[in-house]
């Protein structure tokens, strides 16, 4: 670790292991994420990145291993409780609520994950301001199924942001987008980060990871093979091997 950090971590993952039958998807993973950090997560396909996300967000049960969020052990909590505690995520393949409009998609988050009791009017205002910020203001009443790929990605991030997260996990939010669209989404993530939201970004587009991250971790076959500043990780022998397959 390059920076000496005196503050306690926002997310502390300790010796996490995840098995599917006989297959070990994650092996003894431990990492601390600091509050406000921009954290990049890379690794070849099938290296366990999405599995790790699923463990953090609660879609998978983990055992053994613990996950601390703030001071709380969230390992036994269901996903929706974790969302209410402040962990939000997007999905690698977008999963919108298909029967709803963009606005309704966000309202689900505001209805169920809002921390205090706020009036419906205030929630609508919050929803619109998030949509405006994402550049989706004009799409509020459009059915989610009619969005373009980049709009869908943005809506997923908007929905995640509507839950008021402390930690946002973006799972390949830029996959399949054009160059200018990648920049757009990256700028959005950076603007979230500037609002003091901790972000874990999974991405295959190396340029984006390099530009975004303060720290990068590389997984291969379920284990951490490198962690450090982007340039340190890129220079790592094992990371290059994992990517080039030599």
């Amino acid at each position, binding site marked *: 670790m390059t920076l000496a950090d005196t503050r306690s971590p926002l997310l502390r993952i300790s010796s996490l292991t995840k098995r599917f039958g006989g297959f070990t998807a994650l092996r003894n993973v431990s990492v601390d994420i600091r509050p406000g950090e921009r954290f990049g997560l890379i690794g070849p396909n099938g290296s366990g990145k999405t599995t790790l996300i699923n463990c953090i967000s609660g879609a998978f049960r983990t055992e053994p291993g613990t996950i601390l969020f703030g001071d709380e052990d969230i390992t036994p909590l269901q*996903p929706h409780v974790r969302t209410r505690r402040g962990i939000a995520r997007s999905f690698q393949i977008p999963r919108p609520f298909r*029967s709803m409009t963009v606005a309704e998609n966000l309202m689900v988050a505001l209805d169920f994950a809002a921390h205090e009791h706020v009036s419906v009017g205030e929630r609508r205002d919050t929803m619109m301001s998030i949509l405006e910020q994402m550049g989706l203001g004009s799409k509020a009443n459009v059915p989610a199924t009619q969005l373009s790929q980049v709009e869908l990605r943005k809506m997923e991030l908007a929905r995640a942001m509507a839950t008021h997260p402390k930690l946002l996990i973006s799972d390949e939010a830029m996959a399949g987008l054009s160059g200018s669209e990648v920049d757009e989404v990256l700028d959005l993530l950076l603007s979230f980060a500037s609002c003091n939201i901790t972000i874990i970004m999974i991405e295959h587009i190396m340029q984006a990871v390099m530009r975004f991250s303060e720290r990068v971790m590389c997984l291969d076959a379920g284990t951490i093979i490198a962690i450090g500043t982007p340039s340190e990780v890129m220079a790592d022998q094992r990371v290059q091997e994992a990517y080039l397959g030599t």
Partner: protein
Amino acid sequence: MTRNGIAFWTGAAVFLAAVFAMTQLVGNQYPFFAGYVILQFVALAVAWSILGGYAGYVNFGTSAFFGVGVYASVFLVNAFGAPLPVQILTGAAIGALMGFALGLLTLRMQGIFFSIATIALTIIIETTITNWRYVGGAAGIQIQRPAVTAPFDNYVQMLFFVQALLVVLAVAISRYIQNSWIGRGLQALRDDELAAECTGVPTLRLKLLACVISGALMCAVGAPSAMYLQYADPAGAFNLNYSVSTLAMSLIGGTAHWSGPIVGAILLGTTQQLLTVTISSEVNVLVLGVMLVLFVVGAPEGIIGLIRKLRGKGKEGEA
């Protein structure tokens, strides 16, 4: 109360008043016999769509809940001579418990697996009742109606009114759910359960709630049926026709709005009554099946969806 709310409750009051007036004024018994069955299907379809429509869990087990309601009454009458309200409330309580069990199943099974499991429950319960001598076994059992209470002068008229009350109760609950956070949560989990969880929706709790409410209503609707027919047998009470009718009525009416199942049930229920009288009950089921298939293939949003399309996309009706 909102304007819509006032309109709804006024409508409900007018409906009940009309039903009551009918029991006092109409002498011919046939309208009550036929009307009872139609109202019964309205209540079943509305109850079914709370789980099947809002939450998207296709329950083939309507007949299980209905049959258990029937046999709860049979048992209560046989053992204690319990009055009708007690039968209905007991039915609702047992239905709620069954619903809870069904809700737990959703933890492990979704889609077709859940649906098949509900058929399995139906057959298992039916077989158990068939082997239970006390309530008549496979041969069935006759039930004596008690004397009718004023202001009704005929038992079927009273049952007709009671069923109308159940309809209003079911519709009011369904409407409340649709317009509340419960409805939005159910809609979210129907679209995508994992995404809903990760957006803060307590999916299991909502599914359990939907199952309990839906189950309690279906059982409550079944309870008076023993008194209506004055007879119960397992093959009749657990007949899968209840399941397919309920499902068809809900889907044909449309499950996106609480009024859909009502429209579907009234339309198909009335058609069924006419067909049963004029042609045969087989043709009846055939019409139902063909309509169901035609609608799921050709008009997936049901009649409600067709109406919405006709009115154009501009107006977004909220109720």
